[in-house]
């Protein structure tokens, strides 16, 4: 956890105001005592005296100082499902009896204890620390609304209201689990763990061949050389890196999102899948780039590698906001294609509109290796409205036909299943790359 940072320096000192409880006590005390004295009703005195005593006590005990609050948050950048501490120090509350904190409900933010409410007893020093924990359950950038703190005096007669400032909270996506056993070929980079289709400097054994001028001494296979007429060296496949380009279709978010603990929407699956595949490839030394379309502002992360670049990718993904607007999507459609020829292009889309499939076919026609990951949640058709369910069924039938056509055009479409989602595609691609070719 990072050093706690102040998010609001001392909420404005608010005056102590009488509450409805004080008004009630004053009204009953004076009303009953006056009626009792004027009309000779001793029963009203019996009723009025305890209330007079409440008024007297709470007036004598009335807080005089100016309370001020300063709040701090442990960490403003979290991963999905992570929690951080929210601390607030209230000072100058001498004479107060209790300080109560109430948070405003924020989507995908959970608070402890008591769902974002707490009440702390104030001792004679008038300084009290309120501490709560918050947990962010979904990726994205959101603003935590001010926390309202109410300091109350004895008998709840006087109150002062303090509010903290807005807090910006960045929640990085938690990568889904992903692994790919299949090798990737045809790379054009200089570093990395992906085996190239070309022989060269690397670590993976390719074949044995006779020694040639320029070969390193450590490459000589001495046991084999002893059994043959000349020196034999171990040939290897070159170790190269791969540029994996992600294209995220974030035009809309389909399905319900319950955060990290529940159902995932299409955009949740997209973001977590990109995180997972990017993390996998960056760990192998590959380069990763991300583009989006259909968003409010187009997301662009240029190719790069390393842990800092992964952090950059995750940070950029938190900015994804669906435009839900056909005009934005059409405008984005006119932008140039973002990927280079040698890249593996992974497009993630719920495939509800034809836009993503059209783009995938277009990329395929440019000779790029493209795979489309279908991120539409299974439960998307579950709707209370019968007409909506029917509309979904019709759309899904159309969608199935469109996907079949795209597959016939040579663009594989796979469902996101976590580990191994891309294995079949990568194996097929490797098989095609290693097949003999006729050069004319």
């Amino acid at each position, binding site marked *: 956890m990072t050093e706690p940072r102040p998010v609001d320096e001392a909420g404005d000192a608010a005056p102590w105001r009488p*509450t*409805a*409880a004080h*008004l*009630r*006590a004053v*009204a*009953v005390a004076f*009303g*009953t*005592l006056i*009626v*009792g*004295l004027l009309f*000779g*009703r*001793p*029963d*009203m*005195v*019996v*009723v*009025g*005296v*305890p*209330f*007079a*005593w*409440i008024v*007297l*006590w709470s007036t*004598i*005990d009335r807080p005089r100082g100016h309370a001020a609050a300063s709040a701090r948050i442990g960490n403003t950048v979290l991963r999905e499902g992570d929690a951080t501490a929210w601390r607030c120090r209230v000072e100058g509350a*001498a*004479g107060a*009896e*209790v300080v*109560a*904190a*109430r948070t405003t409900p924020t989507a995908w933010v959970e608070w402890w*204890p*008591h*769902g*974002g*409410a*707490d*009440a*702390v*007893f104030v001792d*004679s020093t008038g300084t009290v620390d309120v501490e709560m924990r918050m947990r962010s359950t979904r990726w994205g950038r959101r603003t935590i609304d001010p926390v309202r703190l*109410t300091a*109350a005096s004895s*008998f*709840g007669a006087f109150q002062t209201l303090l509010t903290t400032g807005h807090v910006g909270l960045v929640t990085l996506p938690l990568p889904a689990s992903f692994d790919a056993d299949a090798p990737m070929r045809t790379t054009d980079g200089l570093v990395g763990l992906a085996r190239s289709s070309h022989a060269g400097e690397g670590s993976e054994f390719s074949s044995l061949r006779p020694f040639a001028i320029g070969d390193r001494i450590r490459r000589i296979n001495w046991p084999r050389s002893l059994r043959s007429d000349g020196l034999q060296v171990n040939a290897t496949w070159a170790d190269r890196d791969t540029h994996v380009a992600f294209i995220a279709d974030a035009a809309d978010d389909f399905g319900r999102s319950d955060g990290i603990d529940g159902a995932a929407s299409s955009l949740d699956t997209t973001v977590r899948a990109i995180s997972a595949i990017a993390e996998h490839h960056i760990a192998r030394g590959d380069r990763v780039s991300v583009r989006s379309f259909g968003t409010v502002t187009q997301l662009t992360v240029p190719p790069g590698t390393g842990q800092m670049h992964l952090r950059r990718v995750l940070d950029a993904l938190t900015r994804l906001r669906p435009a839900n607007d056909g005009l934005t999507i059409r405008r984005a459609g006119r932008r140039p294609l973002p990927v280079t020829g040698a890249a593996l292009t992974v497009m993630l889309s719920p495939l509800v509109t034809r836009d993503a499939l059209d783009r995938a076919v277009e990329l395929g026609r440019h000779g790029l290796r493209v795979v489309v990951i279908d991120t539409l949640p299974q439960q998307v058709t579950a709707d209370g409205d019968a007409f909506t369910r029917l509309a979904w069924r019709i759309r899904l039938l159309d969608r199935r036909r469109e996907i079949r056509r795209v597959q016939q055009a040579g663009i594989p479409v796979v469902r996101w299943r976590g580990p191994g989602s891309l294995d079949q595609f990568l194996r097929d691609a490797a098989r095609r790359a290693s097949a003999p070719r006729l050069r004319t």
Partner: protein
Amino acid sequence: MIERLVGELWAEMRTASPERWVLVAAAIGSAIVLAALARVDHPLVLACVMGFAAIAALQPASNAGLATMAIVLARWLATADDATTPDTAALAIGLITFHLSLAVMATVPQAITLDPRLRRRWLLRLAGLAGIAMTTWVLVEVFTRRALGTSTALATAAVLAIAAGAGAVRASLSRSTR
């Protein structure tokens, strides 16, 4: 709109702690006792008392509690024949319970369980105020039995003098602890 309001109210009440429900029950229960003591037998008046009490229990920072107490006291003034029966002390204790229940609910969020020190303090207050009500009733009873002419004024003066003394002691204590 009413449906939305009820929905929001219900959603809020679902998060309430068991202690909160005890306080709500105390407020509603004391309102029922007050209505019985004040002989609120007219259905409309009874509906008003219970309606205001329910609103006050759900929104303790409102003035619905004051309206409940005002109706009960007005009804008591209209129907009570003998001002010095034990019902008077019961009425006072009922009003105190109702008032303190609302005051606690207005002070702390509904989802939380009270700090034990706070709970003890409020219970002591309830007991102390009930004691004051009983003492006042005894004083009034004594003055009335002995047929002192200005019993009301005397009782008021005597009790207020005691209260002022207690208040002064309390003030000096709180000054010394700060």
